[in-house]
């Protein structure tokens, strides 16, 4: 199944375009079924998926660490295999695992990264990056003396050292405390304001919900959905109406069968679940019918499902 996914930047050519990309590892495992994806410049795109879905594989191919089995990837029109210098110079990668040198100082490692990507030395830029990541005071420390969270910041600093136009963050907040997570989100917003396109993978739905413009859901190597975050939440989000009853109810009256209500909390609450996208929401009718039946309620509230619930339901549907 191949589809062209909606991209917000239709008029401008996409900064990243992936066509029919597949990957089968030497073990025979197909980590990516044909994947199509376009990312617009300046976008924040979140790739969601359970363990082993193929997120890291997808990112690694774009960055040149894993060779694709078939398909095509272009970065600003340049082919990742033929014009690898062009594409890689534009990309920064923060890997999922904490791969760092031990004995090298923070300053030397970011300087190395910049040189490696062919950029002339620019201490002012490196200082700015280190300050933004609260690493400036640690610049002369060896990486091995830093905490895990600090090491992750170092990896981000390395990825930003050569001023990439696209930044890949592979689970940037895995194993990171709340404060650093907030910092990270703030950094991502700052980067976006300066025009950097950001593609991140995450297990934390709140992260996608908090930051992303669009969300892609990948499961077993298949990109099962790509959607604007707000549209996705509207479209797939379930809404729930909960009525707190005056008197506990033993069973749901036959007259209310059409609404498929659920009794909760020992009969004290009536729960009505409906699709947010459903136009014919039956709330007024339900309330009217309840009145006719003489069912009294003290309170009522509605709730909308989070991206997390949407995601879980999507992935489990596939199983």
């Amino acid at each position: 199944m191949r589809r062209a996914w909606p991209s917000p930047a239709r008029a401008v050519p996409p900064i990243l375009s992936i066509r029919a990309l597949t990957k089968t590892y030497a073990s025979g495992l197909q980590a990516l079924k044909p994947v199509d994806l376009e990312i617009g410049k300046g976008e924040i795109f979140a790739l969601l998926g359970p363990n082993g879905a193929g997120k890291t594989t997808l990112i690694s191919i774009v960055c040149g660490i894993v060779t694709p089995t078939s398909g095509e990837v272009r970065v600003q029109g340049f082919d990742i295999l033929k014009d690898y210098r062009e594409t890689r110079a534009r990309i920064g990668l923060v890997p999922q695992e904490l791969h760092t040198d031990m004995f090298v100082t923070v300053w030397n490692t970011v300087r190395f990264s910049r040189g490696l990507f062919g950029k002339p030395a620019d201490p002012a830029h490196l200082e700015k990056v280190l300050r933004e990541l609260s690493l400036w005071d640690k610049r002369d420390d060896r990486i091995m003396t830093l905490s895990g969270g600090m090491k992750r910041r170092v990896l981000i600093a390395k990825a930003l050292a050569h001023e990439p136009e696209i930044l890949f963050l592979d689970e940037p907040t895995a194993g990171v405390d709340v404060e650093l997570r907030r910092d990270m989100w703030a950094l991502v917003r700052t980067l976006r304001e300066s025009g950097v396109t950001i593609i991140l993978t995450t297990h934390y739905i709140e992260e996608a919900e908090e930051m992303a413009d669009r969300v892609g859901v990948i499961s077993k190597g298949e990109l099962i959905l790509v959607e604007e975050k707000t549209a996705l939440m509207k479209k797939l989000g379930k809404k729930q109406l909960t009525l707190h009853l005056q008197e506990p109810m033993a069973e749901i009256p036959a007259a209310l069968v059409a609404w498929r209500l659920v009794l909760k909390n020992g009969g004290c609450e009536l729960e009505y679940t409906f699709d947010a996208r459903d136009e014919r929401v039956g709330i007024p009718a339900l309330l009217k019918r309840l009145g006719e039946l003489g069912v009294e309620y003290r309170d009522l509230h509605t709730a909308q499902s989070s991206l997390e619930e949407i995601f879980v339901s999507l992935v489990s549907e596939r199983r």
Partner: protein
Amino acid sequence: MNAFNGRGVLAIYLFEMSRFNRTFWQSLVAPVITTSLYFIVFGAAIGSRMGELDGVHYGAFIVPGLIMLSVLTESLNNASFGIYLPRFTGTIYEVLSAPVSPFEMVLGYVGAATTKSMILGMVILATATLFVPLSIAHPFWMVAFLVLTAATFCLFGFILGIWANGFEQLQFVPMLVITPLTFLGGAFYSIDMLPGAWRTVSLFNPVVYLISGFRWAFYGTADVAVGVSLSATLGFFLACLGIVWWIFRTGYRLKN
């Protein structure tokens, strides 16, 4: 921007050299002490009873072989460790994702390892002058053989570091292959001193050509004609280059 990424090469080169600086003393002291012991035992104690070989005092005769022995071993160790370490720690991801061509990557890693080997070779040569009077008949060719040998075995080490899947394997090849080849390569004797059949066998040992050519650069005498030595050394160098080229073409053990 399809140009040569000189800054990338320099970054790798300096990174590798700084690793060397951190372990500067270990890298140099051990080989220097070992070589000094060889001079004391072989050069002075045994050499005094040996007289001259090919018209050269025995203590001086073994100098080229000793330098080669150290350069070969250290080239292999340094270069294999240099590329194995980032594979082992995972930091190789950055080099693989950088706009660096395979050639540039080899240039950075192997270039740094070769530099280290050259420094080591020179330090041992300087140490040798403390023990025996030395003369170098063909300084240009001496340096040329040294560079070529160091570069070849650094390439070989690079291949080893990519092939190895554990520290044991990394130690295994230098231990099991190179040391015997060097000892049987005429470091301490002229292969003319071997019985006929063994002399023929020796000619299949590539190290014989390296040491022979190197000794010729010092004393103008050799077990094998210098042209043959040079061709064999070059051939070995090109073979290593070929394997490296294949590694990058297939992504062998570097990319999935």
